């Protein structure tokens, strides 16, 4: 258990069955009244942020959260298998935990795996991925300045919106957090 005096930025706590990280906190005290700590926390699973106040003396539950670096090995469709880079044990993560980010996984990619109360909760991929365009409609020549985009399929399986000048066989850099195109890269 933590005391309100332990509260600081980055502290991880458990509330309502979720892990939360303190992103900001403030000492508040109504005139002549009890002291409180107003805390802004971020849900480490959903990303949702909210404000809570804790009365001085109130206890906060510690958070059983582990962070592992795992190297992606393969998938059988239902589960994705990673190699824990410290223990060399295999970690199996259900597809539902990965969601759409699975479409950006490449073999040997190092990911950060958050394990909450013994259960893998979140997989953070490398932020930027370089991948080859395996299919896209041909673009218009010289069309580099005007806006407009088109869908393109990259080698890991994801579909990305790219500018019209990108062609099949090009390599691009993609932001794995939202699947957005960053730039064309030379290979």
């Amino acid at each position, binding site marked *: 258990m933590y005391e309100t005096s332990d509260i600081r930025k980055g502290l991880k706590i458990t509330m309502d069955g979720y892990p939360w990280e303190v992103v900001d906190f*403030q*000492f*508040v*005290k*109504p*005139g*002549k*009244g*009890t*002291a*409180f700590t*107003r805390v802004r926390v971020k849900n480490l699973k959903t990303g949702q942020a909210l404000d809570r*106040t804790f*009365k001085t003396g109130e206890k906060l539950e510690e958070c059983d959260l582990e962070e592992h670096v795992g190297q992606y090995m393969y998938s059988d469709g239902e589960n994705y298998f990673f190699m824990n880079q410290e223990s060399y044990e295999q970690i199996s993560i259900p597809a539902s935990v990965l969601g759409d980010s699975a479409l950006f996984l490449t073999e040997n990619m190092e990911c950060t795996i958050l394990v909450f109360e013994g259960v893998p909760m979140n997989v953070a991929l490398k932020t930027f991925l370089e991948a080859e365009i395996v299919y896209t409609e041909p673009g218009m020549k010289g069309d580099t300045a005007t806006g407009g985009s088109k869908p393109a399929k990259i080698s890991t399986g994801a579909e990305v919106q790219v500018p019209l000048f990108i062609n099949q066989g090009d390599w691009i850099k993609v932001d794995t957090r939202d699947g957005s195109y960053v730039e064309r890269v030379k290979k």
Partner: protein
Amino acid sequence: MSDHVRFFDGKPSLFQNIPVRARCLALLREFFTARGFIEVETPIVCTSPGVETHLAAMPVSCMNRTMYLTTSPEFHMKRLISVGFDRVFQVTRAFRDGERGERHNPEFTMVEWYRRDCDYGAIMDDSQELLRHVAMGIGGRLEFPGIEGVRGPISLENDFRRVTMVQAFAELGLPSPFGMTLEERDQVAVDHLDFHLGRHEPEFLIEYPADQASLARKKPEDPRVAERFELYCGGLELENGFSELADADEYLERCRIDLAERARLGLPQYPIDERYVSMLRDGMPVCAGTALGFDRLVMLACGARTIRDVIAFPWDQA
């Protein structure tokens, strides 16, 4: 770079805010002096720091006795009223242990003023005119500046609204404060009132339930509430004022409740100021007064986000 300049280097705003602070102080003295208030000084080192539950005093050793740094000059100010002063004000340091944050420094500057023969309405009038005087003197307009990304400017054009606690809770869609414990009301204050009151214009929260009277007298026409107010302005609680409680027995009863609650919570017991009690027994004139957080007033005048932006040497740099 030496330790002593590093702090200032990291806070360029202090170079702008310290002169504003000095100007606020001059304006404040000008304001009270013009209204016939006498500036007084009372002890920093006191026999009693007050016994209210949520006060943590700093003990000091003086002449082989345990004394305390003052948490508020209120007791001595009222003793001056009771010996015949009509209007007094003071700018002093007050000390409250454990209070630190964006709006708190354990050592802070408090402005207190008292008037004889009036109730807290007259003090609220003073507060409104004082804020206007300071804003005009600093910025030349009836407004405190906004803070980017935090809040807009605070307009002082209109008379400050006086909203009872019952009204304020109703506006928030909350049940009546009378049905709540002190702690529940404090929770409402930090979760709701801080965001609801004084966002665009200063507002007075008035008529506290009697169990939250502190040193305010009960309202003669409705003893369920006390004539206590707090001034909310720009997300800050700027002031806490009362029509002063003059009844010695009622005062001792409130002390007894506070000391019992302190004991229950395992907090240190402080002595009751016997000279204050005997002053009440002799008969204190009808009077009212308030305590204003000067550092917070400077924050408003500067558009500063934290108290550290207006104090040259906060407690951890002291």
